[in-house]
């Protein structure tokens, strides 16, 4: 397991509640922009597919 001599870096995806607690401990945090994928109804998806052809 590679860890010795390395510095913890946390990549946060989802709620940002824990981020300030990590930063308070001196941890480098990358915040990721994330939102749920838009779910299209299947009929719209099939129309989009036809349009792309």
């Amino acid at each position, binding site marked *: 397991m590679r*860890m010795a001599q390395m*510095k913890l*870096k946390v*990549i946060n995806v989802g709620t940002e509640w824990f981020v300030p607690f*990590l930063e308070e401990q001196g941890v480098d945090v990358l915040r*990721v922009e*994330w939102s749920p994928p838009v779910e299209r109804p299947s009929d719209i998806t099939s129309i989009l597919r036809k349009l792309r052809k």
Partner: protein
Amino acid sequence: MIVLSEVYHTVEGRYVDSVLLMQISREVEKMEGVQKAGAMVATPENISFFRIAGFNPPPGVGANSILLAVDAVTGPAADAAIGKMLGMIESGTSGAGRRYRLDELPSQMSAEDYPVMLISTPGQYVRDIALGALDIGANLHIFSSNVPLEQELEIKRRGRDRGLLVMGPDCGTSIIDGHGIGFANKLSPGNDVGVIGSSGTGIQELTVQLDAAGLRVSYAIGTGSNDLTPEVGGITTEQAIAMLRGRCSSIAIVCKKPDPALQKSIIARIQDLPSAFISLGSSESGVHGRTGVSGIIDEAVAHISRELGKGHPLAEKAVEAASPGQGRRLLKGYFVGGSLCYQAQAILHREGIKVFSNSPLSPEYSAGGEFRDRNVCIDTGAEEYVAGRPHPMIDPVSRNSFLVRDSGRADVRVILFDVVLGFGSSPDPLDGLQGLEKGPVAVASICGTAQDSQGIESVRRQLEQKGVVVFRSASRAAAYAAAVMKVE
């Protein structure tokens, strides 16, 4: 007379995490003229919380909506507050700072980094994010629950193949090189004991008790609640043992309901070391090689301390069981820590107190929907209590409202609860406990260290001023509750 203006607004078809909604309502409550504000997904349970808070939510709001509610001194103040809430929802964040796209991450990492991706999205989105993270060499701490088991296995196998650690899904706590991720306490760093655990508050209570004994902990690897099932086969536990062996003087593993065959093979892997295997709720007790096996965290800490020849487990002064009033017969336990709820049940059963739960030791002790007339220990962090709202360690008001409610009953003898401090926990874990009545004997444990930001001594003092009997150890609190229940 001040006439308050109540304004409601719904947001349809939009995902906003419940913690951000809580932060939005707290932020808006600081605005001039705003008396109170709420922002929650409109589940039936949350609608009832709106009512308890004094709002009158409009009828017909469904669980696909986010309900915003503001009570302000004037209409314009209420409208301004709703406007601010909508703006914060639109921005989708609670603070400043750059947000990266997933495809930008590789350029942000260097060879010196030990990357851990902390994932707390709804469970159905975890697989794709997790596999992508493993592809760029990141270890995972998956806080999310409700990840399908076959996806969990796929993620864990991929992680193992690449030499990366997959902590979770359903992993509340980990500590890497002295840094707490998720819910964790501030400990004095060192490598006396390496901790591995499938239960979040189990890890917190264990590390806090080790710290109190003077034993140093810099690594606690959360494995996720399914790791020691036959299906998952202990993939993360095995990786964690390999990682901590040689790095730490001893290893302590804490879990709930492990598969018996896995338990046996894991003990065989660690029994040459000073070590402990804690299966919470189990009545098992003994020593295999140098491994102490127990169902109680404090017993494991004592074993490790003896094996290492250092440390002094916390000794709390004996407290004589308080005498309950006439007609008081029931025990009502409400926990924010699922593992502490589980351990408490085991201790109560061991003392002959029959107790029911939403997370029971065995199905015959399932609390069911109606448990008004039963002794109960309820895990208020369980799925049915957190749908559309933050975990009670983040927002303790709902759990504390149960304690206040039952403290007013004439048939309740003991109120039992936990207070969990540390990183990730509410800055005010006693919020909502103001109305606690002094009828029943109230018993609490505080899981925390003197270094935790909430101030362990201040929390203890506040509890004692409310008449609560306070212990530093959850097992001692449960044992005291049992003693009070046995007073003739």
